């Protein structure tokens, strides 16, 4: 384990995992906070705590499950395709300015926890797949990836969302990274082994092509659905002179 820490490859992989975690779990905390919104003050902390705990537990479970699955033939192929799609989806802008999900803020603690767990399941999948792809068969990297994602679920604020808003290039870098990782996973597919071993140049060509594929497809699709209004009105109000009464509380 200690020698591993000294290889540059280890740190490159660590960087990849952190990047993927940052981009794919930033919204996890927001979803948890929103689902607990309508709980009474005293229960809200509990709801968030249980929600974060559930998210972490699910992630550990799913990660080991994913690693087990990925050892089966063909499934690396499926995993790589999924990762390509996750990368493209990351780059795509939102369809419309309005939410379309169905989770309402629950007024009961267990209702909130239940919704959070369901949401966690969906949100963990892409992340788990990304981390498993980077870690390959390295258990230490896998554990490290899990540990890194935990504080991000628990405390990640809106800073990531704001950063992405300010520097959209982060999204493209993230999409390219996911494509690259997908390419690496593709190389690991047992079916392609003979081919890869015969042509060593494929070791960098495939990931590079996959990264470009995500960037290209993402940009192309993004251009097709550009020009969505990005500013939305939420509330309006007018306060008349001299009156302490406030009208128009929307």
């Amino acid at each position, binding site marked *: 384990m200690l020698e591993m820490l000294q290889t540059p490859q280890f740190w490159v992989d660590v960087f990849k995992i952190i990047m993927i975690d940052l981009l794919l779990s930033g919204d996890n905390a927001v979803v948890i906070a929103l689902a607990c919104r309508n709980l009474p003050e005293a229960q809200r902390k509990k709801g968030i705590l249980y929600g974060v705990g559930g998210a972490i537990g699910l992630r550990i479970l799913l990660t080991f499950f994913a690693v087990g699955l990925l050892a089966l033939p063909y499934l690396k192929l499926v995993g790589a395709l999924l990762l390509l799609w996750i990368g493209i989806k990351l780059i795509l802008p939102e369809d419309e300015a309005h939410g379309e*999900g169905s989770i309402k*803020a629950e007024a009961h603690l267990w209702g909130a926890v239940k919704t959070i767990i369901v949401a966690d399941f969906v949100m963990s999948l892409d992340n788990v797949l990304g981390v498993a792809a980077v870690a390959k068969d390295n258990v230490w990297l896998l554990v490290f990836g899990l540990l890194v994602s935990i504080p991000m679920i628990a405390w990640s604020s809106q800073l990531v969302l704001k950063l992405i808003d300010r520097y959209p290039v982060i999204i493209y870098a993230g999409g390219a990274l996911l494509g690259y990782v997908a390419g690496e996973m593709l190389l690991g597919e047992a079916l392609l082994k003979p081919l890869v071993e015969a042509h060593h140049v494929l070791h960098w060509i495939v990931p590079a092509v996959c990264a470009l594929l995500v960037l290209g497809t993402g940009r192309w699709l993004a251009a097709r659905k550009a020009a969505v209004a990005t*500013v*939305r009105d939420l*509330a309006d109000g*007018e*306060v008349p*002179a001299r009156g302490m009464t406030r009208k128009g509380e929307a």
Partner: protein
Amino acid sequence: MKILVPVDGSEHSLHAVRHALVLHDSLKAVPELVLLNVQRSVAQGNVKLLIDAQTIDDYQREQGMAALETARHVLDQRGIAYQYHLSVGHPAEAIAQYAAKHGVSHIVIGAHGEGGLGKRLLGSIVAQVLETTALPVTVVR
């Protein structure tokens, strides 16, 4: 004359509100005052996929009203008429868009909003506002 005061709840945005009050008191024709708060959209990626629109809107409205609270208090105490508005989106864009749509003639804005790390990473909203609007802008420290 319509004066737009972007407010994020920070100390500097309150300075801007107070300066707008000074303008209100000293201009010959009493200007209209509009407080504007812009919330960054949280409806991205999985959040949008999982949470219903109503809950997201309620949350952002609550955050926006909270950010406006102290500024409104300052104006309420003076008992003058004003409007307020909440938008969701990129701050500078939303400010410019509101100004263009509602015939704003002057923007009064605090020098710094989000302080510290956020500001260093995100850059100054004021600089972006100056870039996106052709209106006269007063920056208040």
